[in-house]
Structures are given as C-alpha cells and as structure tokens.
C-alpha cells in the first residue's frame, strides 16, 4: 500500500488514513453487486439482500468493537455521530427532565463544540472545561462542575490534534454518578482501544471509518442499550436506523467500514507496537533540534506528535516543509481557515506558538527509513528558517521559550 499520493511523505494519518486495499476491494465489490444497486429499505428481494448485507456489516463492526449489533447506528462519519450524540442525547435528556446542562472540554473537535453552541442557543447551559497546559483533563476538574442538572458529558478519547489520551474510565464513572450520559468521540481512539466498548463507562461513542483505513464518508454512533441511552434524531424524514438516522444507508461504505474495523482490530497490537517504535525513533531524531515545544503528553497516543517550533513563523514552516512532508498545523477540519488551533490556544499556547505547530501523525505502513527521512527534512528546514530569525537569535543568546513568547511557565520541550 502506498500512503503518499505525491512526492511528499504522508505524515497526516490523523486527518485521514489510506484505504486498505482489501477494504477498497470490498467497497468496490459491494458497489457493483446486485444488492449494491438496491435500496435497503425496498421490500423486493434485491432490497432485502441489501438490507441483509448492512445487517451483516453491523454484526461485523459490533464484533470488532465488542458491542451488540443493535447498538450500532450508521452515520456519514464521526462528525454526524458527534452531532447526533450531543444534540440528540442532550435534547432527549432534557425532554425527560434529566438535566439542561452539557459539559465538555475546550479542546474537543468542532463537531462537538459547535453542537454545544447550538444547544446553548436552545437554552442549555454549556460548561467548557479548560485542560491542563499539556491537554489533559484531570478527573477532579470534571467532578467539580458536575451536578444533577447535567444532561450529558462529552470528552474525546484521544485528541485529534495532540494525541492526548484522557482518563476515560474515571471521567465516565463521574458522569454516570451524576446521572449524565457519557459521550466519547473515538474517531481517533479505536486503533488504540482494545477493550470491549460495552465494558467501558460510556453511553455514546462516535466512530469514523477513514481514520482507521476505511473509506471516507461513513461512520457510526454506538449507543448503549442496557441501560438505554435515548436519543432524539437529528436527521429526519425516514425510518432508517430504528428511526434515529433518516436517509438511505450507503451499503458499499458501510461494508467497507465494517471490513476496515475487522482487519484493524485483528492487527491492532502489531500495528501499535510498530507505530510505537516509529514514534520513539521520531522523538529521538527531533530531540536534537531544540526549541520544540511538546503540545501534548509523552504518554499520549504514539500515532500523534504535535510540536510547536519556537523561533519560526508557522506559515514559513509549513510552506517550506510542504514539498517534502505532508503534515498539518492541527485539525484538517479547521486548518484551511488559517487560524491557530483552538486546541492549542485552550492549552495556553500563545497565538504565535500555536501557529507554529506541526502535527505529525503516523500510520502502519511507514518505515523507519521514512521516519529518518522526515527527521532529516525537519532538521534541515528548521535550521534554514531559524538562521535569519531574530527570535532564534534571542533564544541562542539565552532567552527561554516562555520569555520570548510571554508565557507564565516554561513549556515542556521535546528532548
């Protein structure tokens, strides 16, 4: 499988992974099959065959994540799953007299934050917690704001920009103790989540296919049935997905997602070990550069490393690296807007430092040779850009990152 679609080495797996060839074959086969033509809602034999394929895929996905097939709701992706969980979950909770406040974290994906803003316009109170400067949300911080007025708590498992892993079990237990639904955006999480989903203290979990070698345009929301996490549908106009998500399901994408998750869960441990080795090599290679601010934690996801390059302008950095490495400034969903990441700013990074961030995310087909090439490119380009930078001159003369960027505390560097 070739991850790179251009001459530049692809290191943006957190934005999207290449479709596994076996999955692509599966998608193509479904697309041209007899049942692929039919609408699964149709009563004729072809329609029933299509519906049966979707149900088989539902079973496959459920087995891969350790859940009951009836708990799977197909969506167009994790964004829609987030919307359905947050909007649908909170609205239903309020309708049942179970709270009128939602609690989330300022570092969540926009799919959750924007849904929370929508709820605020509908009269919900919204509490957005700030994480520590390393992006971690201490469970105590959640405990302090919980109460019986909280309808829903939404905290992602692995941050898509920083790779920070939250203490999901502790946060979920706290949410449940207060009577709130617990939603987890696990778009980045399933590759590193070996436990059965049903064994976790969660009620709603958003899944994405294209973050785990599946096709883009499909995802799922897992929702617990015992005890039942009740939802109000967001997309209406049909009875599909037990009335919770209207619209003709995309059979070929659904089959592809199920196959991607089946394959991914089988090779999860092997892939994780390989990526952990690559990450170690990457960190060791970058440590000598100096002045790389770690945006995240050393114990975060091995797949995602986010660093801010002190002394270098963000635009210059990404333009200069762009011909050799495909990396991003942060979430692909917002980086085109050219504004510094809301995640890094919520972690207290000054705008100039947040703007100089690079998210390097790793995938299973990368080799150590490619990691070495990426390190060499970064070492060279950063040195070239720091050479004429007055900011870097000040740092060489002894100024710390905190002094230069006006921060209260010295940030943690990659070393």
């Amino acid at each position, binding site marked *: 499988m070739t991850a790179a679609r251009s001459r530049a080495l692809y290191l943006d797996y957190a934005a999207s992974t290449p479709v596994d060839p076996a999955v692509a074959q599966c998608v193509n086969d479904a697309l041209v099959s007899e049942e692929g033509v039919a609408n699964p809602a149709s009563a004729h034999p072809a329609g029933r065959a299509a519906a049966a394929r979707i149900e088989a895929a539902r079973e496959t996905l459920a087995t891969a994540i350790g859940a009951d097939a009836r708990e799977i709701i197909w969506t167009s992706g994790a964004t829609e799953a987030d919307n359905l969980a947050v909007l649908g979950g909170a609205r239903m909770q309020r309708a049942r007299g179970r709270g009128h406040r939602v609690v989330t974290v300022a570092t969540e994906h926009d799919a959750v934050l924007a849904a929370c803003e929508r709820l605020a316009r509908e009269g919900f109170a919204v509490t957005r917690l700030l994480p520590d400067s390393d992006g971690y949300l201490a469970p105590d911080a959640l405990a302090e704001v919980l109460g019986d007025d909280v309808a829903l708590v939404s905290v992602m498992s692995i941050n898509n920009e920083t790779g920070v892993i939250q203490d999901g079990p502790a946060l979920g237990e706290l949410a449940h103790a207060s009577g709130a639904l617990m939603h987890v955006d696990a778009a980045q999480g399933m590759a590193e989540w070996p436990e059965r989903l049903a064994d976790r203290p969660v009620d709603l979990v958003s899944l994405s296919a294209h973050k785990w070698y599946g096709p883009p345009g499909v995802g799922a929301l897992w929702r617990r049935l015992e005890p039942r996490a009740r939802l109000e549908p967001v997309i209406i106009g049909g009875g599909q997905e037990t009335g919770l998500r209207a619209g003709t399901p995309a059979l070929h994408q659904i089959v592809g997602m199920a196959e991607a998750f089946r394959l991914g869960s089988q090779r999860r441990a092997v892939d994780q070990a390989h990526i952990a080795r690559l990450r170690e090599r990457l960190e060791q290679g970058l440590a000598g550069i100096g002045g790389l601010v770690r945006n995240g934690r050393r114990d975060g996801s091995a797949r995602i490393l986010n660093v801010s390059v002190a002394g270098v302008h963000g635009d210059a950095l990404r333009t200069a690296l762009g011909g050799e490495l495909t990396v991003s400034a942060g979430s692909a969903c917002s980086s085109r807007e050219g504004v510094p990441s809301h995640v890094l700013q919520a972690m207290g990074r000054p*705008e100039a430092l947040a703007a100089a961030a690079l998210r390097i995310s790793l995938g299973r087909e990368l080799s150590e040779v490619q990691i070495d090439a990426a390190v060499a490119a970064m070492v060279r380009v950063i040195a070239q850009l720091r050479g004429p930078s007055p900011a870097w001159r000040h740092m060489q003369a002894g100024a710390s990152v905190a002094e230069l960027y006006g921060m209260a505390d010295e940030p943690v560097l990659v070393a």
Partner: protein
Amino acid sequence: MADREGGWWSRLSHVGGPVDASGYRVAEIGGLSDGLWVVAWVQINDEVIADARFEVYGALEALAIADWLAARIIGHARQAACRINARDALDALGLPAEAGGDALRIEDALRLALSCDAIGGSYEH
C-alpha cells in the same frame, strides 16, 4: 515565487544578521505576536550602502522581499536607498498583493536603519 525551486529560502544572500555587527546601523520593527519581526542591518560608508541585511521572522514571502530589497540598495547612495519602494518587490518576485503589508513593514525597518527621515528621503507610497 511559484517558479522557484524548493529550498530557495536557504540560498538568499541577504537574510540573517551580519557575522560582525560592528559598524552596522540597526533598526527593528514588529514582534512575534505581530506575525512579522524584522531587524534591518545597514553598513554605510561615505553615504553609500556598503552592506544591507535583514533578520526576518515571518512568512517566506517576507524573506524574499527583504532579500530583494537589500540587493537593490547595496552600492547605492543612502538618499537613493531611502526612495526605494518595497512594494515593487511584489511585481518583481511575483508575490500576491497580500504580501504588501509585510513589504511596507520591511521597508519601514530599512528606512529607520537608514535614518531616512533625518535626511529628507521620504516619499509617498
């Protein structure tokens, strides 16, 4: 800049501070939070620009403009250098109009280093 080869920014001759700063006039504009930080260094001998260099924290376009500007004034009289228009760099380098703001600020740093106001070298943009 679109037709430039990759890595061209590493081959600019006039960006980066002087190895030996003695005898240079220096002026500084901007900062990290402005998105552009420019330090202009000029060496003037008998009212002629002997050397000009720029330290730049900014986008690659800013580096290219600074380098172009320095190359244009070296060897010229200080008064003539004060009349240079950095926006001309946009056409010369094929840069978008959005780079005009950076060009003006780089020019401001240069004019400060040259003490243009003191010698009446101002002009209308």
